């Protein structure tokens, strides 16, 4: 498995790279890859998402082939795009979503931020009902059982940007960040390192590969 840190990269550029990797992974010519990055400010909306969730008409959103509704990406948010071949890992989209949640919950716990799942609302949340706040959003697209898109974990994200949308389609959905939850917990670089270290092991634990290839390419 390959883990790449792309730094700050334009949404469309990263999108093109993902598409290329998805084709390669599906064809067996590329290793599974995790892209870690930040985007310049951009709003994206899932294919089934509702334009009406963009409250401010002066902003435009990129419609993309992932699940979920509208969200914001911008500096200070750690974005992870895993390109994973689920054909070899049990072909179960819900399990894959739960894996992403588990990964983020464990990472944030490492930095002293307690987060959790909320049933029926994919993503990672802090607090307890009804005072939930969304710490990370998740939206996945799958082509030939190879995944693209993934998660966005707010580290020091400018949260005011979320006030112009109904994040993920929920009205008045509060959004939070690692920084808000616990100032000075760790830099985005440290958190990214932690994701890079943990990702593959947890993936193999929760979604074991039924092919030897993964073992072979592991470094």
């Amino acid at each position: 498995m390959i883990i790449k840190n792309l730094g700050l990269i334009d949404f469309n550029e990263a999108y093109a790279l993902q598409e290329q990797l998805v084709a390669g992974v599906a064809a067996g010519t590329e290793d599974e890859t995790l892209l870690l990055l930040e985007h310049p400010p951009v709003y994206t909306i899932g294919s089934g998402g509702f334009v009406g969730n963009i409250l401010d008409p002066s902003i435009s959103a990129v419609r993309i082939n992932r699940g979920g509704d509208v969200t914001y990406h911008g500096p200070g948010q750690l974005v992870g795009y895993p390109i994973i071949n689920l054909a070899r890992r049990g072909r179960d989209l819900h399990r894959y979503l739960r894996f992403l949640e588990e990964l983020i919950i464990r990472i944030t716990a490492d930095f002293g931020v307690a987060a959790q799942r909320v049933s029926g609302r994919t993503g990672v949340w802090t607090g307890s009902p009804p005072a939930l706040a969304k710490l990370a959003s998740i939206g996945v697209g799958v082509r030939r059982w190879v995944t693209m898109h993934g998660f966005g974990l707010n580290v020091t994200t400018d949260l005011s940007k979320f006030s112009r949308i109904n994040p993920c389609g929920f009205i008045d959905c509060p959004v939070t960040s690692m920084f808000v939850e616990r100032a000075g917990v760790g830099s985005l670089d440290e958190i990214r390192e932690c994701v890079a270290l943990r990702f593959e092991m947890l993936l193999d634990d929760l979604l074991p590969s039924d092919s030897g290839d993964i073992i072979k390419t592991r470094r």
Partner: protein
Amino acid sequence: MPTEITMPKLSDTMTEGRLISWKKSVGEKVERGDILAEVETDKANMELESFSSGILLETRVKPGDMAVVGTVIAIVGEAGDAAPAPEKKTVLPPAGAENEQLPPAEQVRKGEESGMSEGLSKTERPQPEPVTGAMDKEEFPEPEKTTGEPVGSAPAEAEKASPMVRRLAREQGIDLMLVKGSGPDGRILQEDLEKQVKVEVKVEEKASEPEQSISGVQGAEQPLSRMRTAIARTVSRAWQEIPHFTVTFAIDMSEAEEVRRELKESGKPLSINDLIIKAATSALVEFPQLNNSFAGDRIAVNSDINIGQAVGLEDGLVVPVIRGCQGLSLKEIAARSRELISRAKEGKISEAELGGGTFTISNLGMFGVEEFMAVIQPPQGAILAVGAIMDEAVVQNGSIAAARIMRVTLSADHRLIDGAYAARFLQELKRVLENPVTMLM
């Protein structure tokens, strides 16, 4: 031999999936490996591949609809193949079964609709946002699916709901016995709960009024389409929040019509609306406050003049926006406007083209409307309602003359704009339209 395409099981815990969009239209050739559709479960979307080649003969689920895993959602076969007899109870919304026996004309219509899936990516689902206000992602059945049954007619089915729906119902204090399920065998879906919440709110609001005001005289109901829902929310919000005032002006359009005729004859097609957009742009440059937004504790200043035009559709309207009007010539405005309107009517407009408006023009002149007032689209500061150009007798220099008069009514947000300012804006608009040559420079 026709092949049935079914809603795939994308997870052990997936019971139903939502058809997001068709990537092929009925009658289109499909190769093995082509992407037929996009389906969604939870926050994950899967591109559905075809495992056989042939022609897409039929689609049985509309974009936005849920379908149970294993349900036949489409048929791929050879041109001569008759689509096999459709199964019953396959599609979740109530009209599913009726839809499957559509008359041929309807089938064609359906095909055309799915064909649009590229542009806006889907016709049914993200219906082009008619308006720009807040809205969540609830789904509403199409109006033609009206069953006429009053809510609460199926108490026996009340237990047919998923654990998640039951939990949501508990949380929201909804009695499932009162909810009419729109799923197969009356299964209660999440959207039914959302509808029920609305019904309950409506009942509370109207409690003091005669009963018939809730459901009409015959007790029939028509569910709201997505577009109607969106319009309803935006105009309610606008009407409740924005203190509207209106100012009307009569403008002599004789010269503007003359300019239009001349340009048309020289092969430069132009509509009266294009002239109004251009004139409004120059007036907005002079009176920029009308291009701004009231934002609670401050005024949001919009540096670009982005003018939206209301385009009427069968069930509602959309407002495609021409951006950066201050930098566009009349010719450019005309070209952009023509393109946007035709795509809006075909349902192919993208959301980027519907958003970002800073001022709106609504023209009902083609219906012979003399004058009317329009509701402001939040967060905009004003909207111009344009009536028909009519032959009127006017007094000019002491004698009666024939003139081509058009009345325009500006609705403005009084929190942002005062009457005198609005009047001066209209004076400028009138000046430009009555001296249209200035627009050609």
